[in-house]
């Protein structure tokens, strides 16, 4: 996954220099091929180096893929099985005692479909940190309920909206939508006005909700 | 709380005194609607109106479609035809669906010529759903609520 910052695109024309508007694809033009496609834009995150980042890297080694910062907000990307372990370590050793949010983002075209994001805050340090992992459709990440009780409803909502099941959650059911609803609305393949027609017909006795 | 205050219900009487103080008729602020309609602010986001040039009665709208693009609910439909003489677009129909409108004001902000404006009219009730979809004439004249006399 290309998350590291790439240098400016391969077609950057030489700065200043050539007064003529030379086509900025020298190699391709010479070879006579079509212009190479632009790389997909990625977040311009820069590496984050601090005592906390070093401690985490030391403790978790390979399981942390990167520690970066973007716009002054620090985040780390880790392997899915390490996420709850990191949350627990941060709570016990680094004073990050407040779980602000758990959420997910759906990237359907990516190999690992979902971004699972934990946002933590430390009262003592007055610092916020984001922990991101990439998981596949069908993966069952570990539940964070035993570390922070807040995770109960937050994970239920992620399950409801995205269909990500959490292993070890005491009560994994839908929270915002009715229990018998089919489908997970915040996935990108769920239409904006799509509804579970079967549920609407059975429970509301009308043909359609629209 | 000391015993005397407790027995003589001093705290409860204190609260009751506040209530009795407010019984003074000068504190009545009920608005007797519909006999007196409230005066809303100048910037109030109420019924939409298509403004018309007061001198020649022509519409100010230039059919640029910016309001339709700005609307979050996409409920404005603007059609226009090209006038061959002046080589400009002229407005033919303008449809505004007030049933879905959330009166956010984005269309009013987007209009470059101040043709579309949200006025202070707030009595927009109709008896049918179709009546909520306003055409150009309704937009230029505005809603005409029945004045009730009590």
């Amino acid at each position, binding site marked *: 996954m290309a998350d590291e910052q790439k240098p400016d695109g391969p077609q950057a024309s030489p700065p200043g220099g050539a007064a003529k508007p030379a086509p900025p694809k020298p190699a391709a033009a010479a070879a006579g091929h079509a212009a190479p496609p632009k790389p997909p*834009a*990625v*977040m*311009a*995150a820069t590496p984050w180096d601090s005592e906390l980042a070093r401690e985490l890297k030391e403790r978790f080694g390979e399981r942390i893929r990167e520690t970066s910062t*973007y*716009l002054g*907000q620090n985040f780390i990307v880790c392997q899915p099985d390490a996420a709850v372990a990191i949350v627990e370590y941060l709570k016990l050793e680094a004073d990050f*005692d*407040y779980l*602000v*949010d758990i*959420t997910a*983002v*759906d990237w359907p075209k990516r190999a690992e479909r979902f971004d699972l994001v934990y*946002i933590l805050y430390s*009262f003592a340090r*007055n610092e916020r940190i*984001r922990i991101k992992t990439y998981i596949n459709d069908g993966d069952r990440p570990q539940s964070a309920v035993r570390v*922070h*009780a*807040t995770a*109960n*409803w*937050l994970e239920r*909502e992620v399950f409801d*909206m995205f269909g990500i099941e959490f292993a070890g959650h005491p009560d994994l059911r*839908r*929270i*915002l*939508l*009715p229990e018998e609803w089919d489908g997970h*609305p*915040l996935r*990108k393949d769920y239409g*904006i006005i799509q509804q579970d027609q079967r549920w609407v017909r059975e429970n509301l006795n009308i043909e359609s909700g629209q | *709380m000391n015993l005397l205050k*407790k027995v003589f219900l001093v*705290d*409860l009487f*204190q*609260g009751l005194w*506040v*209530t009795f103080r*407010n019984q003074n008729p000068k504190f009545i*602020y009920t608005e007797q609607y519909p006999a007196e309609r409230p005066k*809303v*602010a*100048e*910037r*109030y*986001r109420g019924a939409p109106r298509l403004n018309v040039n007061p001198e020649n009665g022509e519409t100010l709208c230039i059919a640029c479609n910016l309001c339709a693009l*700005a609307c*979050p609910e996409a409920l404005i439909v603007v059609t226009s035809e090209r006038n061959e003489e002046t080589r400009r677009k002229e407005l033919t129909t303008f449809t505004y669906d007030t049933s879905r409108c*959330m*009166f*956010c*004001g*984005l269309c009013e*902000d987007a209009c470059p010529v101040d043709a579309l404006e949200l006025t202070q009219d707030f009595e927009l009730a109709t008896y049918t759903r179709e009546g909520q979809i306003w055409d150009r004439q309704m937009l230029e004249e505005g809603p005409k609520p029945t004045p009730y006399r009590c």
Partner: protein
Amino acid sequence: MPDATFLDSTELVLNMGPQHPSTHGVLRVILKLDGEKVLGTECVIGYLHRGVEKIAENRTYAQFNPYVDRMDYVAAVSNGLGYCLAVEKLLNVEAPPRAQAVRVILTELNRIASHLLWLGTHALDIGAITPVFYCFREREEALKIFEKYCGARLTTHAFRIGGLQYETYDGFEQDIRAFCDMFLPKVDEYEELLTNNRIWVGRLKGIGVLTADECKEYGVTGPVLRAAGVKWDLRKAQPYSGYDKYEFDIPTGRNADTYDRYLVRMEEMRQSVRIMRQAVAGLPEGPIMGKVGKVIKPAVGEAYVSIEAPKGELGYYVVSDGSTQPYRVRVRPPSFVNLQSLDRMVSGGLVADVVAIIGTLDIVLGEVDR
């Protein structure tokens, strides 16, 4: 004569259904009771779920702005502030100082309006019918100012990404000063009605205790956390929109019960007046809109920005994929997270206290369900 065992009740499941005058919206609480004692509860929410986060993925950044007002509909200005700050963070722009000052004034006025509604409805739930009239009378004055400024009383859409749309109207400063002068004695009036009233104290003291550790465990923020003794307010800890320029105190409580939360919120209203007075006195001149292009297209990235809404920490996690529409907007609603702690606070208490505790959490179902 029926046998005495006939009266042996097993657990009674009582449904405090979605239609209930005291649940502050469509909240269903399933109570398991043993006589009058509450053994456990379960909250069923989702009756007001409108899919705001899904809508965000289908609108442009500026078009989504009116939708956020409708989440916490009693304090719409704060929602707008949080969203605008989050998108401004992604764009890496800051609103100009005049815009920031006006934003602070309107947000604090909004905090007062929200707390007034809280006080009125909380008192009404507990049985004191008079405060609701007085609170709404003051709230009316605050809503009049919103109406004069942006055109709407409740779903204000007051801020835009990058600053403000409207310049302050003529007489804005006089109106704010007049409101502040009028309002402080009224807070004393509410206190006169309630604070030392034995019925009020009896119904609120010692009810719904949620200690500081429990608050942090459940992720509860806002006045509930402050009543537990934690002196933490995002306006001071991570100031935004120029809050570091103003002097104000953070009220805290000691016993973490419902009575302390009431006192904390009353004091917060007074501090809000203090902030408003300072902001109006030092209102800078200048532009009201920052350097934001006509089309808002932030770079690829994500940001999480949170503000101190009247109900707690309201956060927006916005993910951008470089286009004009946000890729994902996650709203971290304070009422949703605070509502989780209801079970902890209510269990073991009496059923009459359930209503008081729901009221003291200050939830708005529009925010819980989005």
